[in-house]
């Protein structure tokens, strides 16, 4: 019988306000943040602001209060400290994704500033992929979208965490393809993302199969073979493998 130390550890999850917030027990987490007298004021404020994002029913008042608290934190905590960046990231998220109408321009500027600060924090570095999504799927003309994406290319240099870089390259690759952009450039982004590695099959397999297809289309046979062979090696039981093998075979046969 397994002594189940791991089990005991897992069963203990969900006991603190933060753990509850991380596992969708938002109402309980919010209540604990509000009533907690031992927590530091900044931590408490951040906890309340984060849970207000999803406290049900979601009201305009809750969202405005959340934005206000994030704003206060951004003012109280000096730039360069992680909590300052977290607060600004989530405030930008509110502006972009919660408020109606959204203030995408303000969100874009905040995301850009966060990337340029080079925080080296993965969550904050997601700002770069958010910028790609905002630009690549905006309602601008196709030419403007592609030009906007081209301007964002340089952001990769500001990202310090491997996962932040991976997500940026992934988003860029897909955004370029979704806009009929340069396939070779999209493929380069996919290669860069793949070099870092994916923790989950869903994203990895989708990227490998898309990248393999694109590489075959533009005649980069070596890259196509690389992605298809990797898929076959890592996920030999995947239901798409038969088709992948066929693609690979046709590449080998020229």
């Amino acid at each position, binding site marked *: 019988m397994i002594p189940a130390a791991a089990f005991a550890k897992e069963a203990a999850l969900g006991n603190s306000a933060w753990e509850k917030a991380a596992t969708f027990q938002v109402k309980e987490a919010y209540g604990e943040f509000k009533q907690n007298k031992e927590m530091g004021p900044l931590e408490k404020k951040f906890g309340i602001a984060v849970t207000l994002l*999803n406290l049900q029913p979601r009201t305009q008042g809750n969202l405005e209060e959340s934005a206000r608290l994030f704003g206060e934190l951004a003012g109280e905590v000096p730039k360069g400290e992680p909590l300052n960046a977290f607060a600004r990231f989530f405030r930008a998220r509110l502006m972009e994704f919660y408020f109606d109408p959204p203030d995408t321009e303000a969100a874009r500027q905040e995301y850009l500033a966060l990337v340029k600060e080079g925080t080296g924090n993965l969550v904050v570095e997601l700002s770069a992929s958010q910028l790609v999504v905002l630009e690549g799927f905006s309602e601008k003309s196709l030419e403007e979208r592609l030009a906007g994406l081209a301007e964002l290319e340089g952001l990769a240099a500001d990202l310090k965490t491997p996962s932040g870089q991976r997500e940026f390259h992934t988003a860029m690759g897909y955004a370029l393809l979704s806009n009929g952009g340069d396939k070779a450039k999209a493929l380069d982004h996919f290669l860069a993302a793949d070099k870092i590695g994916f923790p989950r099959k869903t994203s990895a397999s989708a990227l490998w199969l898309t990248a393999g297809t694109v590489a075959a289309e533009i005649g980069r046979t070596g890259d196509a073979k690389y992605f298809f062979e990797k898929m076959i090696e890592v996920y030999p039981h995947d239901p798409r493998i038969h088709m*992948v093998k066929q693609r690979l075979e046709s590449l080998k046969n020229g």
Partner: protein
Amino acid sequence: MGESLREKILNGIGLGLLLLCFVISLGRIMWDRGGNTQEHGESVTIRFAHWQLEGGVREAFDEIAAAYMKLHPEVEVVQIPVPERIFQNWLITQLVGGTAPDIIQMGMGLSEDRQARFFVPSTEVADLPNPWNRGTELEGVPLRETFIDGMESCFNNSLLEYYGVPLSSYTVRMYYNLDLLHEITGSEELPATYGELVELSKKVLAYAAKSGQKVFPIAGSKYNSPTIMSRLFKSQTAGISRRVYYGALAEPTNFSAIAESAANGGWTLDDPEVLAGLKLMRDLGQYMQPGFLQLGRDDASFYFVQGKALMIATGSWDATSITSQADFRLGIGLIPVPAPGSEQGPYSEGIASDASIGTGVIMGLTRDCEHPEVALDFLLFMASQPMNQLWTDVSKWAPSVVGVVPDPQAKPFQPFFDGYLGGFDLNLGQTDTMRIISNATNRLVGPTGSVEGFLEAIRPDFLPAVEHDLVRVERNLRVSAQRSDTTLGALAWMALQDPGSVRLKEKVDLLSQTVVAGNLNHARTQRANNSVRKSLK
């Protein structure tokens, strides 16, 4: 006076008996609640619940429980089968009331917050070897890798944890009445292609006409028919998926990509591939019993086991029930699709692959279980290679564990991957589009139906229905992405306080990937919605 004394004595005895019963009941409850524990050197009771009442499954669970109790006489394992129709309400009552069994089948009635609140993740256990695999080829292999799908079915994308372990796998197949097949054709060879299926169906109709017996080729219902019709339609649309979506090899049915291209003229309802798919659906409908679209799942099964239909398309979960009810021999094969370049399905690429491995019967540990170590041990015992072998041998359901040899009856249900996934279904897998297709299906497969009549019926409503679906999907994706933000904020804070925690780092990494994929998906859907809306103006 004497009468009154007797009455008092009798009342006293009655009251005494009542008190005695109360004390015994109280003692029994206390014994069950806590006194009856391993700590006291007494027995432990582990209860597990599920909704699989199909034939053979309860027996399989009983045998596994008996095998465990033989090894652990101090443990009593109790199976609680709960009918599917009341399972959800029963589950919520048990969870909220704090009376939930130690192990419960997961998947029905479990929102993410309930899952997080009431179930224990199996993430860390997944990385440890299953001790009950000792002496097998899986000895020392991490639990996760002992399942044919790597426990993918157990992973919750929002909670970023694995929950439970799977015991079985599912596939959909065509079942045949072999005795009837022999009587009609003189052979027991099953059709391999759609063309052969049509030929066989014609023979059945001729046999029925000649013999005067009421026999139809295929038992249909609103439950079974869409499965086979969808597979036929999809066999024709792979080319369109590839033409309109760069990611078609990864996901040929991507809703937003297919919907956006429908709005932008990337494909139309009049494309030859669509027409070929509809013709296949119409033709197949002619071989099902009249009025099948109004019938339910049980009606079709009854039709088949009564020998009134030669074939039925349904899942592996029905195998034991059908076997126990049918007094004829069963044949089971893949659902035939048109051969490449054939007259019936010119756009077919070949045999259809099973869309996913789809392990199921996922059993999870509840947080309130009184003897977590024993419950975990029994869970791992159930998921071991020897017990999964027992599972398939008794239930006749396909196994979930690597290296388990399926029972001969379960063998035809082993996932088939040497085929093609096909393209998209006309209903795009979405509620409103599905509804208008379903409402008009009689115009396609009914006695006076036709492809033209069906298209005439759906054409005005098709894109508006797609738009409704896009609005709903976009809203759901937005809510899902918003929900991730609180988790992301909480994990970001916890990781900051505990920079050495590998687990937190992994969770932040996983969530980042989920967040970006979710945001991209949302943005694509929003754009598709704008395109459809513009095209409707």
